[in-house]
């Protein structure tokens, strides 16, 4: 990374930043753009580690990442790690820290990004494409890709290149309170249960007489897992979806003969808004109907801690969530067996939405080869098994099929844990939440207009028309150059 100011605090620099006069100079000093270094040739990757000690600065939760590093260090004693702990829960908090670090020219080697940020970082040349490394390590990587569903891989691609090896993912499935279901006379729903089945179940539970009221269904106002699952099963999306060209190198090398990889490209392109699509309006109509019929409580606007509490206390029968919730519910004191999970109900189809996450390599890393070695180890089965997000308690769904097993969910539940991965296997059209490089301002608009409809301030049609208009403005202002369009 070209960071001329990194180690030189001259008196003049100091005055530039602090002093009154030289505002523009200060800005120049502030801006230490992350210059992408040319991806190192993958040829020598995997060679014997260099003798001198190398320090990796890793932006990760030390509780989770330290066991991975300890295991890695056994074979790489020369590698030291420093963890940069970002405790922000929200994207803005994490972004604020990242931007400050970058502005100050802080050197970092590995960072974490979820779907929301994958294309942003790739598009801004902050993260490093892994293509050369993956190709150079074909033998090692075969095992990884054989274990990971191509949908997840495709979600980590941008314009034909792969930027991250998925570590965990969460599709929005339907969690339900088994006690509330039993009381109303329902058993475990069929995998192909329909939107109508869902409606009848929720309505019956919410309409029960006697005792304190149990609501049928609730959700949190955000991008992932809000009413987005209903948009997907109704065949809609708020942005147009298209596959970027490229990516054959991936599918032809690692997924030959896998039908689920057929027709995949070089990553998703979300090129234009389509918020007021009829399917979307219908889905939001359904949400408002549930609210008007007192099946759903008022939508959660804050962080969602309370919704989890209400679900564990049995005042809520169903809510959309992924594998991460099993750990959360167990932590909140819900007994194994008190909750279970099924696929999201079928409407026009049963296409789910998911988000995935993993570390990435900073384009500015000075030790790309060592960083890659660490990265590869972190994605290996050994590295993933010891990761604090999977051990001792499962806090999220592993991206590896072989790690989604009975043993993993034996203590916490849910009984039908296999739903998590069969979402991908049985519904290969399942796709990531729409997350173009401008996903953050897009999310603000999405949640803002969603809440307008849910508070009955606007009809679903009005709200989605408004969302569409503002999304069009956003695309006109910032949407150019997000993808390499010819």
């Amino acid at each position: 990374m070209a960071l001329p100011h990194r180690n030189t605090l001259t008196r003049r620099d100091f005055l530039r930043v602090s002093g009154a006069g030289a505002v523009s100079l200060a800005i120049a000093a502030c801006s230490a753009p992350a210059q992408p270094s040319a991806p190192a040739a993958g040829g020598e990757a995997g060679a014997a580690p260099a003798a001198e000690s190398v320090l990796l600065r890793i932006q990760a939760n030390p509780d989770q990442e330290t066991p991975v590093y300890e295991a890695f260090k056994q074979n790489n004693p020369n590698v030291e790690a420093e963890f940069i702990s970002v405790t922000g829960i929200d994207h803005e908090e994490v972004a604020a820290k990242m931007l400050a670090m970058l502005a100050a020219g802080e050197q970092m080697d590995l960072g974490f990004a979820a779907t929301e940020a994958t294309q942003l970082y790739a598009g801004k040349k902050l993260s490093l494409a892994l293509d050369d490394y993956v190709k150079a390590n074909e033998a090692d990587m075969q095992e990884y890709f054989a274990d990971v569903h191509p949908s997840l891989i495709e979600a980590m691609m941008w314009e034909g290149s792969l930027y991250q090896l998925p570590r965990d993912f969460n599709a929005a499935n339907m969690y339900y309170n088994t006690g509330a279901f039993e009381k109303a006379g329902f058993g475990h729903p069929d995998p192909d249960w329909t939107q109508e089945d869902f409606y009848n179940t929720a309505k019956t539970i919410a309409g029960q007489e006697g005792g304190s009221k149990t609501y049928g269904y609730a959700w949190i106002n955000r991008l992932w897992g809000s009413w987005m699952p209903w948009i997907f099963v109704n065949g809609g999306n708020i942005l147009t979806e298209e596959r970027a060209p490229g990516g054959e190198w991936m599918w032809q090398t690692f997924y030959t003969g896998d039908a689920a990889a057929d027709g995949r490209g070089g990553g998703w392109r979300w090129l234009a808004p389509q918020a007021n699509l009829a399917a979307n309006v219908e889905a939001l109509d359904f949400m408002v109907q549930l609210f008007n019929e007192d099946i759903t409580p008022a939508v959660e606007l804050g962080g969602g801690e309370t919704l989890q509490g209400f679900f564990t206390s049995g005042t809520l029968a169903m809510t959309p969530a992924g594998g991460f919730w099993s750990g959360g519910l167990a932590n909140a004191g819900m007994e194994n067996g008190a909750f279970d999970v099924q696929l999201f109900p079928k409407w026009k189809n049963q296409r789910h939405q998911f988000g995935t996450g993993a570390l990435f390599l900073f384009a500015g890393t000075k030790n790309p080869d060592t960083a890659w070695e660490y990265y590869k180890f972190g994605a290996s089965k050994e590295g993933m098994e010891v990761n604090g997000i999977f051990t001792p308690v499962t806090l999220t769904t592993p991206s590896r099929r072989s790690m989604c097993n009975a043993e993993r969910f034996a203590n916490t539940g849910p009984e039908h844990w296999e739903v998590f991965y069969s979402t991908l296997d049985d519904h290969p059209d399942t796709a990531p939440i729409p997350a173009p490089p401008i996903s953050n301002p897009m999310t603000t608009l999405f949640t803002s207009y969603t809440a307008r409809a849910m508070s009955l301030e606007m009809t679903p049609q009005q709200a989605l028309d408004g969302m569409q208009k503002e999304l069009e403005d956003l695309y006109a202002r910032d949407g150019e150059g997000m993808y390499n369009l010819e």
Partner: protein
Amino acid sequence: MQTSTTYSEGATRPPKRNWLYFMRYRTLRFVGLLLFTLASFIVLAPFAWTLATSLRLPTESFTLPPQWLPRNPDWTNYNRVFEEIDFWRMILNSAIVAAVIVAGQLTTASLAGYAFGRLEFPGREILFWLIMATMMIPLQATIIPVFVLISRMGLNDTLASLILPSLPTAFGTFLLRQYFMAVPKDFEEAALIDGAGQFTIFSRIYLPLVAPGLAVLAVLVFNTHWNEFFRPLIFLLSRDNFTIPLGLNVLKGYMMTGSVSVVLAGVVMSLIPVILVYSFGQRYLIEGIMMGGVKG
């Protein structure tokens, strides 16, 4: 306190010993006190729920009717706080940061407040307004330039990065200026006649008189920096340097999978030091008033 209490008693005593008047007065007082007590219960209710929830599992907390009292208290949530974060270390970090900032701000603000409140010099008004103006920019707007500065100074990931920028205080300067201005002039004139030097007048005469102001500032500043979240979030990188609000956020867990009860157990424990500071500050505040003279 003594003086004003004695006085208040006199003031609220009914002027006439009329029986009917007396009864009405008594009833009004009783009803007023009842409402006041009720209001205090409402204000405290969130604390009751926080405490009760920290002593049980979330499954039993989000129910109706609300559970205000901890039945069968269960201390495992408290144990888990210690398992999941280095609680004492974070408490120590927070205490160092908050205490040093309090000491620093009391010094800088009493000097500056005195200068603005009691001394005359060219440019006083302009300087006062320039300092006041720095209160009017939200912290979030300058966090990146401040972090760049901190990083260039090599203070990145140190407690000093939180302390140093917080030593001067526009708010504290304004607060103490008001207190200094409220002191009647007679005191200083008396001191001048006694031939006291300028610094002596400040430290021996004025500073004790604004003791309540210092106590108010101390409690406020300690609390602010004890609970401060955003700057530590940006400035601190390693767990060893974390302050307690960051620790509480760690307890929320990856993708919010932590237990609310464990978070609230952490909240309850981290409240104890600020409550202690408040109690001490309150006593000092009252004593400062009793030392009085301000009433002149």
